[in-house]
């Protein structure tokens, strides 16, 4: 450090090393992703040769006959993710609003802390808890819900007959618990970017707290909140072990009945990989690649939305 300051403008050895390491690390991640994509595309060959386009449209998944249709699992992935969002989004938003706008600092800390703890519980713990503790009481709750809505068109098919403890809905509930902390913490940060002046302006006009939130906070953070929700969606769709344990592992079933057992793309891979033959494995690799593409797309779109909304709100400051 005692050296004279070098003003030649040439990068020092340390600078060059840092530069190289940083580029190397960044490139490494991209190379790994690309290699995964290439390797997997190669491995899905056999099933596409056999099934052709039917792979994406057929609803039959029969390893015994060598027939593989991915549609039921795509449906299950989307359906459980939607259920999870419907349950998790309102809770997350209200928690985020409570923490940022209503709670005193004494309350804020423990709530944030507990929510962050929820985010680090391993998913297999949620899954086992779902199977061993939640499944049976939920079945009774499902039955009551079904009896309550029986006869109402629409609702009676969603909350359908002969509910089971392991179902789309059970998986949706578990996934909702898992994504709530993610959505909440992002929503919190987005909401906190609302300029104090906007809020004070609303109060100055005589707005109540709720009116202030509606008039200043929500319009300001809309984009960022959508992004937060989509990040939760990505997580819900990719969740494997928890879903595999509680979703019920039905084969080839597409139904709107949320109380029926279902299956999702990651769950079927986790369940069937161990005993699969070549073609069966190739069908699951193709499932994995589809999931890979879908989650990357969801993540890219959501982070783009979050970034754009952040730039806009910083501009307003």
């Amino acid at each position, binding site marked *: 450090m005692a050296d004279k300051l070098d003003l030649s403008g040439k990068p020092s050895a340390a600078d060059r090393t840092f530069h190289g390491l940083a580029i190397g690390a960044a490139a490494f991640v991209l190379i*790994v992703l690309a290699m995964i994509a290439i390797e997997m595309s190669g491995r899905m060959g056999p099933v596409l040769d056999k099934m052709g386009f039917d792979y994406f449209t057929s609803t039959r998944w029969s390893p015994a006959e060598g027939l593989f249709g991915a549609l039921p699992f795509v449906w299950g992935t989307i359906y459980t993710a939607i259920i999870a969002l419907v349950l998790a989004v309102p809770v997350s938003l209200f928690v985020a609003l409570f923490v940022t706008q209503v709670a005193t600092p004494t309350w804020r800390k423990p709530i944030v802390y507990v929510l962050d703890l929820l985010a680090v519980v391993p998913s297999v713990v949620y899954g086992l808890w779902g199977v061993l503790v939640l499944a049976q009481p939920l079945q009774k709750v499902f039955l009551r819900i079904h009896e309550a809505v029986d006869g109402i068109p629409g609702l009676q098919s969603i909350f359908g007959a002969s509910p089971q403890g392991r179902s789309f809905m059970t998986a949706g509930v578990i996934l909702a618990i898992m994504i709530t902390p993610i959505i909440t913490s992002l929503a919190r940060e987005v909401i906190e970017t609302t300029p104090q002046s906007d809020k004070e302006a609303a109060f100055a006009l005589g707005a109540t707290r709720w009116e202030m939130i509606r008039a200043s906070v929500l319009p300001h953070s809309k984009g960022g909140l959508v992004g937060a929700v989509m990040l939760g969606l990505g997580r819900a769709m990719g969740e494997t072990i928890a879903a595999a344990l509680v979703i019920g*592992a039905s*084969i080839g079933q597409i139904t709107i009945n949320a109380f029926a057992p279902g299956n999702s793309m990651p769950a079927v891979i986790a369940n069937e990989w161990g005993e699969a*033959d070549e073609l069966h494995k190739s069908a699951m690799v193709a499932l994995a690649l589809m999931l890979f593409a879908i989650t990357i797309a969801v993540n890219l779109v959501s982070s783009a939305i979050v970034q754009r909304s952040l730039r806009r709100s910083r501009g307003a400051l």
Partner: protein
Amino acid sequence: MKIWTASILSIGLLASCGKKKEEGGGGGSAGAGTGSASGAGPAPSGKATINGSGSTFQKAFQEVAIEGFTKAHGDVTINYSGGGSGKGRQDFADMVTDYGCTDGLYKDEEKAKLKGGEFVYVPILLGAITVSYNVPGVDKLQLSAETIAKIFQRDIKKWNDPAIAKDNPGAKLPATDIVVAHRSDGSGTTQQFTLYLEKAAGAAWKLKSGSTVEWPADTQAGNGNSGVAQIVKSTAGAIGYVDLPDAKASGVKYASIKNAAGKYVEPTAQSAQAAGEGLEVKDDLTFVSVNAPGDATYPITAPTWCMAYTKPADKAKGAAVKAYFQFMITDGQKLIPEIDFAPLSKTLQDKAIAQVAKIQG
């Protein structure tokens, strides 16, 4: 700035979750390179570590056999990691392991891909798969293959159905709804159970046989034998297929099944061993043991094998594998009844001993 890091972090997290899954998928081939590389070094004669993986059906036996064998051969270490028959076959084919154990066989086109060349199947034991049930008030139940097929296909949905009553003359059956439990994971147990129904129920069974079949939608799925047993135990009216040790461990009741000779037989280690007596065994010691002939035979009896290469690359490991295989089919057989499996019949054991002799250790 905070939101920046938060979103980047969570994106990174998601990406790494995705990555893990893909790596798991490609694990078979990635592991192959390291496995064969580490096996290349010559080990001092006598001292050896051998690794096996595969069938969870015989994992309980592998554990007691390894304990028994290493007591006598202190210089040999054996690791058996389970993971399922499919994994056992894959690892063995890629030479990640020194021996593999499996309930199912390689297809002919897969045999060409075995990196270690010629290998032998050695039958290890037979095990009964029970049809476990939970019907309050019913302590004895008899079922024929046709009835089981109808139950698991949801053709019959009440316990007092005439088809069940016909198998159980004089029994009082309640009008309880039947709840069918099956495996959520791909499984050799499902494979053998459905193979039995395919062979014994004939046209009445329409779902074919395999490690995963197209179960009707209104059935329940549990993970592993213990998962199915848990559903049966906790659900009134439930029925499911569970291997005998797990059925005993969880305390569920199980049915006597009508065998090929028309007799209803209870699943026990003895009735499963009886299935091994009159089997048609091929030259490579593979066979089908479901629906086997014999008055005392329990018909849903599943086989399991271990596999070893006949020309092992590493002599010390080869010798250890050979000695361990010899132990499993001779002295090791005495350990089997304790864990509720069936030892090999005398004829099968003699053939297995001849088979193990082909391993050049």
